[in-house]
């Protein structure tokens, strides 16, 4: 099956006064129709940056400096603004982290839904309103026919995130980029929101890039997982393998330090040190200063994603030509 999203060798740069920072470097992955790709990694790894590049909303001066992004086989990374605008919302939906700040406080939720649908679909005011009510019902808002005229501040956080989900899906995009959709919510509500997202994605056949710190959510929702480190993909593969049996030394550390519930992964219990700043990414493998398995080649050459059997990992231990090979412990969890 042709992937719905195909990111190839994506590079994002931030020109600054003290030189150019490379926020994403050689990021490649694909998402199949209807598939959920989980994206994990420490804070600052470049997860949000990847999402922003895909929807064409990198904050200036950040820019795509290399690689390609293909949506349904069509390049979208170099489209003129107006064409990219028509893709946003219509072909790629976005869900942000904090539902308290993503809705415009001055408009009713109905107006915001109607506005979005009428931007992309050829609907009369009456039809759009009917559909807005339908969407609110679909995301589980009780008494939708009345609530359609309520303002965001009249809803709780969880209910607002349901509205945000309706807004992201209302023009029926085939891909949704969800950046930590539950991080800002009460723990008790997170599971409901994830279940809703999962159900809607399945019903509508929507593919999803799901950024989260919550390994529980990943295990339950994602089909495949990408682990990011310092603006690169460290490992990518089926969820069961990456979570239960990671091959990359960084993934191993990350999975071993899964915090209870949803706390952010700021520091890895198993691995000393911290992720390098963008201005100080070491040559070779970006993980080499912290890696317990590091050897000479890691400090010189940068590893590509290599086959490890079940997953692909950017680690020289999996190159048969390397002088050091992955120890048994890594190969089998």
């Amino acid at each position, binding site marked *: 099956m042709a992937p719905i999203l195909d990111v190839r060798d994506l590079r994002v740069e931030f020109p600054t006064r003290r030189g150019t920072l490379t926020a994403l470097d050689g990021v490649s992955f694909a998402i199949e129709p209807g598939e959920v790709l989980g994206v994990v990694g420490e804070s600052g790894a470049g997860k949000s940056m990847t999402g922003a590049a895909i929807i064409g909303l990198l904050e200036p001066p950040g820019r795509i400096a290399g690689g390609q992004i293909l949506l349904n086989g069509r390049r979208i990374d170099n489209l003129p603004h107006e064409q990219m605008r*028509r893709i946003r919302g219509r072909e790629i939906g976005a869900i942000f982290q904090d539902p308290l700040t*993503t809705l415009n406080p*001055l408009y009713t939720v109905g107006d915001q839904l109607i*506005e979005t649908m009428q*931007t992309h679909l050829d609907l009369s005011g009456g039809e759009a309103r009917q559909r807005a009510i339908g969407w609110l019902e679909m995301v589980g808002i009780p008494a939708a026919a009345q609530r359609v005229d309520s*303002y965001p501040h*009249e809803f709780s956080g969880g209910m607002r995130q349901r509205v945000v989900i309706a807004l992201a899906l209302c023009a029926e995009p085939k891909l949704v980029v969800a950046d930590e959709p539950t991080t800002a919510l009460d723990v008790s509500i997170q599971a409901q929101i994830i279940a809703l997202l999962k159900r809607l994605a399945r019903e509508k056949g929507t593919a999803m890039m799901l950024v989260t710190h919550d390994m529980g959510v990943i295990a339950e929702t994602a089909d495949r997982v990408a682990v990011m480190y310092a603006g690169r993909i460290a490992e990518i593969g089926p969820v069961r393998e990456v979570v239960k049996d990671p091959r990359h030394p960084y993934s191993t550390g990350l999975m071993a330090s899964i915090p209870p519930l949803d706390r952010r992964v700021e520091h890895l219990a198993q691995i000393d040190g911290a992720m390098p700043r963008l201005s100080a990414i070491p040559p070779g493998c970006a993980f080499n200063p912290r890696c317990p398995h590091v050897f000479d080649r890691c400090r010189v050459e940068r590893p590509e994603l290599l086959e490890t059997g079940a997953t692909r990992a950017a680690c020289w231990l999996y190159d048969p030509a390397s002088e050091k090979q992955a120890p048994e412990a890594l190969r089998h969890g």
Partner: protein
Amino acid sequence: MFAFIVSRVLQAVPVMLAVALISFAMFAYVGDPVAIMLGQDFTEAQRAALVSDLGLDQPFFVQFLRFIGNAAQGEFGLSYRLSRPVAELIGERAPATLELAFCAAIIALVAGVAMGVYTGLYRNSWLSRLLLTVSLIGVSLPPFLVGILLILVFSVWLGWLPSFGRGEVVQLGWWSTGFLTWSGIKALILPSVTLGLFQLTLIMRLVRAEMLEVLRTDYIKFARARGLGNRAVHFGHALRNTLVPVITIAGLQLGGIIAFAIVTETVFQWPGMGLLFIQSVSAADIPVMAAYLVLIALVFVTINLVVDLLYYAVDPRLRIGRAVARGR
């Protein structure tokens, strides 16, 4: 809604009473109206008659109550200087000031908001930089200097616009308007630009700062992520969210326009209330000064009320009563 208006009006009452007290205190303690009105030669009987005429032999608070009662009916007595009813004097002068302030306010609001939006959206363009630099000059030059410079350029050098007065006015009932004649309109231009310039630059800078702030918010990013066009994002979502603080400041500034009118009216010899006030100050004409004070306070209080109502219209979060009634 109705209850909201009533509560705001009630809040204004103490303010108005305080101002009334101050202007009444001027009567009681500044100068001696009796001496001023009697002139040089008078008998003790004349003096006593005048004192009881003016009610000056009554206790303080009786006098104050009577002052309020009269003020509420627009009755401020006779001008010491011109010996004519103050209400009549103010009634003659008010249209000139109000038309001037109205034009200045429109200029400040329309140009200020437009320029603020432009400089907020295109903050790196050369025009934005130019506007910002010029606006710095606008806020730092005192209005009288601006007025004199404008007169120098447009009246003296170019000879396009008159340097003083209202031009020809047309009488509509008791209201005299300069809007209906060409010379009246030309006469309005320089003074209203002078008067509005400071507020214009202030509003422009405020709108710009608010726009920059709002454009960074998540809901603007989300509006873009939903694929809305620039126009919808900039005007429908961003500008509207800047309005609440802008209304606050603009409201206060409009009050300021009427107060600042004193200077502009003096520079342009504009026959308005400000000029009347200045003339009254130099003649210690207390009744006119007191009336002017009360009137300005009334203007401020009214503007505040309008500002509150506008908030209510713009920002649904303030309509709390409704949200609670509906049950969250």
